[in-house]
């Protein structure tokens, strides 16, 4: 099978910034002969290999599972390994992801996101202590279906770049963190909803979301964080009123939300 011979000359306007040398970011243009099947990442690799060794950027798997290569491509947050050049014009602007500090060139600082993610305690809080002898948790396919799409998050942060509320409010915990909190709240093995409530139902989380929906539109794994957040709002409202009207109620189990029949 012969490789595609179609080569298209595409000019890439890439943001460059070296904090040791530059007082502010600037754009540098590269002419790249792109093959028909290339993604943006292929072109950037070409730039680094052939044209400019100094360009810095993140990437790894080249198949949209690691979440490393998020960039703004012509103003839209995309994974560079998931954005096909054949769908794009002859002039492409490449910038680091919006709403994050730039470390250098196309590399952004992720710390803010990682801390927000850790704040929601995204791991199973088991209902009771189990030993190895108890065996593993069991879960039916229906129970898995409740939260399965939310497990697909690859922490690529495109949703943070897309969300106008993240831009307007830097303390906003953001789509992915809330989607992942909801993922665990819906997991039948987990009972951590009480623990997460302080963060999720706080003034910096679900109530800052105005359901723009941009997060779900850019998500490469179809996690749909916007839906997760709306469901979390309903769940949190229920919890809130229950705590006032029925303060004697035992702590809510995490698996009862999202399931109505």
């Amino acid at each position, binding site marked *: 099978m012969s490789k595609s011979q179609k080569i298209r000359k595409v000019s890439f306007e890439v943001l460059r910034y070296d904090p040791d040398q530059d007082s502010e970011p600037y754009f540098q243009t590269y002419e790249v002969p792109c093959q028909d099947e290339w993604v943006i990442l292929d072109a950037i690799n070409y730039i680094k290999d052939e044209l400019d060794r100094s360009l810095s950027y993140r990437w790894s798997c080249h198949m949209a599972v690691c979440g490393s290569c998020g960039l703004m491509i012509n103003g839209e947050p995309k994974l560079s390994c998931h954005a096909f050049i054949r769908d794009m014009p002859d002039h492409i602007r490449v910038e680091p992801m919006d709403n994050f500090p730039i470390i250098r060139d196309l590399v952004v600082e992720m710390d*803010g996101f990682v801390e*927000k993610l850790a704040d929601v305690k995204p791991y199973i809080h088991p209902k009771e202590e189990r030993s190895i002898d108890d065996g593993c948790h069991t879960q039916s396919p229906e129970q898995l279906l409740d939260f399965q799409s939310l497990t697909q998050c690859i922490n690529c942060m495109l949703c943070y770049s897309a969300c106008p509320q993240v831009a*307007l409010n830097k*303390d906003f915990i953001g789509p992915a963190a809330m989607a992942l909190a909801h993922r665990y709240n819906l997991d039948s093995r987990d009972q951590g909803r009480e623990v997460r409530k*302080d963060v999720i*139902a*706080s*003034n910096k989380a679900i109530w800052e979301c105005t359901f723009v929906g941009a997060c779900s539109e850019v998500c490469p794994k179809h996690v749909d964080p916007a839906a997760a957040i709306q469901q979390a709002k309903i769940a949190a*409202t229920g919890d809130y009123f229950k705590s006032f009207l029925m303060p004697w109620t035992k702590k809510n189990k995490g698996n009862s939300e999202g399931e109505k029949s």
Partner: protein
Amino acid sequence: MSHINKNNYKASHKPIIWSLFAAGGTVTALLLSALILLIALAVPMGFISADMFHYDRIQQLLSNPLVRLVVFGIIFLSLWHAAHRMRCTMHDFGIRADGLVAVVFYGLALIMSIVLAIALI
């Protein structure tokens, strides 16, 4: 070095206003467009006669206290839905004085609710 510490997460009482927003949004979505057509547009556009809005007729329609309660409920919820969404929209427009905005819009909703209650009792 956590630049977001736990103290940043304050408990929120937003569920109260959000429930009004959500209920009001649903009520508005289901009912308001028909009400606008009926009350504001049907007569000037000639679909029904102005006699349908004769004072005595309207008084009779609203004579049942249950009807008045329902009317109150619909308008009340729609008012608070609008107030909350407008407050959030001001934030989207970049207006930072959220406290003041909240007072203005919720205050308006409260005043209108009181006038409505007085009108219907």
